[in-house]
């Protein structure tokens, strides 16, 4: 073992870690992962079928597309139908608003462009100065600083035809809401590697302390996830509740100050609605007053309201809180599949339902 990336994927090490996991002798416990990339890694590994008795893994609200309510997609559709070029990530064009997806609107002539990042959307605005370009920004603290930086750059260069429809969310308020939810039984968190690159591992300390939950920051390779779980279960066994970072090659205890700096400059924290969790105070990032000319909501949608109807029969709201497993949803695998998704959790490859379906986890039809 000389190269950490290789070690993190080494099958022999994986089997030894699984053995180590099976020596768990603590009480039954539910562990929640709150990152879509973890959701995918766990599904791909088939890890749920390899766990010791009494240990359950739940997928939480870690997929940005999944937690974004239908109303945001209604807003994005309205922009695209009003002649604004709506740029966003690939996953977002397949999520239904009250009626349509952005992709369906595009097939009928609306200007919807898939981009890799906010920088690409800004580049689009530079190339087509006669067009208004609005970027639908989704994501947690990993993505939000990159969007903030693009907004700042747009203001500095006087790029008035670039704006952001922000649906960015703060991770910690959602984790706290889950811990307060009597229906949700979480004994520990597997914390996201990449959001924590920005937040710093110590960001979870107040949660660990106040709610007595182990919070272990882990990476995404098979052995990163396994080491994370070993550490979680060790803490549960010992009755501890601490923050541990088992992803030191990408995460520090302290935050990324440059990223948080631009985030705090460009955005302000406001209440925001989450699919499944409802309205959570201080959980959304909205553009600050000083950047109002780059706020698509303020510029183009002021005074308009949108229905935000969720799809009929969709149980994403319960799936996102870990109180319903994807295959327990009556639509799963029948009316709702990755090819023809009904709900957001199936649309995104990172959604719990999408990941479960693709990798056909033990017990899935």
């Amino acid at each position, binding site marked *: 073992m000389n190269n950490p990336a290789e*070690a993190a994927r080494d099958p022999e090490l994986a089997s030894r870690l699984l053995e180590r996991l099976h020596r768990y002798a603590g009480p039954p416990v539910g562990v929640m992962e709150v990152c879509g990339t973890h959701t995918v890694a766990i599904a791909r590994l088939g890890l749920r079928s390899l766990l010791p008795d009494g240990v359950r893994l739940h997928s939480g609200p870690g997929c940005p597309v999944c937690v974004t309510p239908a109303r945001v997609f209604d807003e994005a559709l309205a922009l695209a139908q009003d002649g604004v070029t709506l740029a966003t990530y690939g996953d977002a064009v397949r999520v239904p608003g009250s009626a349509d997806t952005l992709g369906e609107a595009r097939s009928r002539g609306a200007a919807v462009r898939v981009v890799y990042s906010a920088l690409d959307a800004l580049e689009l605005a530079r190339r087509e100065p006669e067009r208004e370009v609005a970027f639908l920004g989704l994501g947690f603290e*990993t993505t939000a600083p*990159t969007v903030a930086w693009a907004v700042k750059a747009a203001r500095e260069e006087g790029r008035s035809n670039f704006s952001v429809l922000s649906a960015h969310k703060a991770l910690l308020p959602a984790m706290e809401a889950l811990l307060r939810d009597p229906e949700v039984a979480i004994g520990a968190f597997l914390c996201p590697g990449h959001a924590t690159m920005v937040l710093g591992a110590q960001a979870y300390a107040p949660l660990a302390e106040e709610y007595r939950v182990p919070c272990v920051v882990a990476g995404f390779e098979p052995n990163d996830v396994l*080491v994370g779980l070993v550490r979680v279960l060790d803490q549960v066994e010992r009755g501890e509740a601490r923050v541990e970072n088992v992803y030191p*090659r*990408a995460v520090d205890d302290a935050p990324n100050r440059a990223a948080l700096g631009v985030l705090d400059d460009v955005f302000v924290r406001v209440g925001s609605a989450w699919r499944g969790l409802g309205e959570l105070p201080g959980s959304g990032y909205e553009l600050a007053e000083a950047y109002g000319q780059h706020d698509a909501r303020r510029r183009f949608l002021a005074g308009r309201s949108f229905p935000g109807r969720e799809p009929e029969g969709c149980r994403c709201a319960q799936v996102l809180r870990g109180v319903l497993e994807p295959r327990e949803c009556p639509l799963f695998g029948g009316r709702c599949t990755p090819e023809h998704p009904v709900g957001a959790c199936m649309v995104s490859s990172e959604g719990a339902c999408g990941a479960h379906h693709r990798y056909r986890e033990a017990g899935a039809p």
Partner: protein
Amino acid sequence: MCVAVPGEILTLEPDGTAVVDFGGTRRTVSLALVEGAAPGDYVVVHAGFALHRVDPEEARETLALFRSVLDEQPG
């Protein structure tokens, strides 16, 4: 969505970006959100930005961590 990929900085450009090599694929990446990155450094990249500079010491720490988890007795 929050996927981030490590790559090696090849060259620094005057506009605050860098050419980064991801196992043979080269991309221009903004260094606006990391401090002190230099050619030869590995950075973790998300949505066109380097968000973390990998310290070689941290890589060694990872290996030590894997070993220690296997050596420890639980509970």
